[in-house]
């Protein structure tokens, strides 16, 4: 199993600002995944972050809005840029195990 730490666990942000979420894994992993969970909804994959290359974004998500860094095999950041109330969500970092995904505790963002 993998232990994943996310920071911040929650934050309240003002419209128009940006926030960076950090994800630290206790082991080296090739791919890290960023998900968004809007209130009362399921998880939607934002992007896959590979070390040493640009992140791969899913349909509906763009790098300008959700820039991702992956400086090494244990760490990644997701920035939510120019936030609006529609960005209020839980953002989850995950890594792949033998078959399943391991998740961090999530970062709950509220945008006012």
């Amino acid at each position, binding site marked *: 199993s993998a232990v*994943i730490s996310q920071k911040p666990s929650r934050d309240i942000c003002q419209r128009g600002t940006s926030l960076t979420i950090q994800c630290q894994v206790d082991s080296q992993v090739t*791919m890290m995944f960023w998900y968004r*969970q809007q209130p009362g*909804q*399921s*998880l*939607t*994959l934002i992007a*896959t972050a590979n070390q040493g290359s640009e992140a791969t974004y899913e349909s509906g998500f763009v790098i300008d809005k959700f820039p991702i860094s992956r400086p090494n095999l244990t760490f990644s950041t997701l920035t939510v840029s120019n936030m609006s109330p529609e960005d209020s969500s*839980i953002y*989850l970092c*995950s890594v792949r*195990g033998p*078959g*399943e*995904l*391991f*998740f*961090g*505790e*999530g970062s*709950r963002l509220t945008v006012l």
Partner: protein
Amino acid sequence: SQQGEEDPQALSIQEGENATMNCSYKTSINNLQWYRQNSGRGLVHLILIRSNEREKHSGRLRVTLDTSKKSSSLLITASRAADTASYFCATASLGLQGGSEKLVFGKGTKLTVNP
């Protein structure tokens, strides 16, 4: 597009009763997984069933998979108040052009077990 669809959306039972949640999906899969989420926190993997398996058990959990009907069910037996959580199914399929496997999550069932 959303792959898994769970029903019911919400389920409330008494402690000791069994809870059954269903998941339907639309396309071919490699495997189907069930996850649990406590109160908007991170998800915890419960069980994985491969496309060539029909039933799997883990403790009080029983999962079935019917690929002809593109459906799965999660049964929690002898439920406890601590089982109160949201349960999500997730289907794993190969990405386009043989790319890495992707997980697509359903909308989840919110289970409440009353003491």
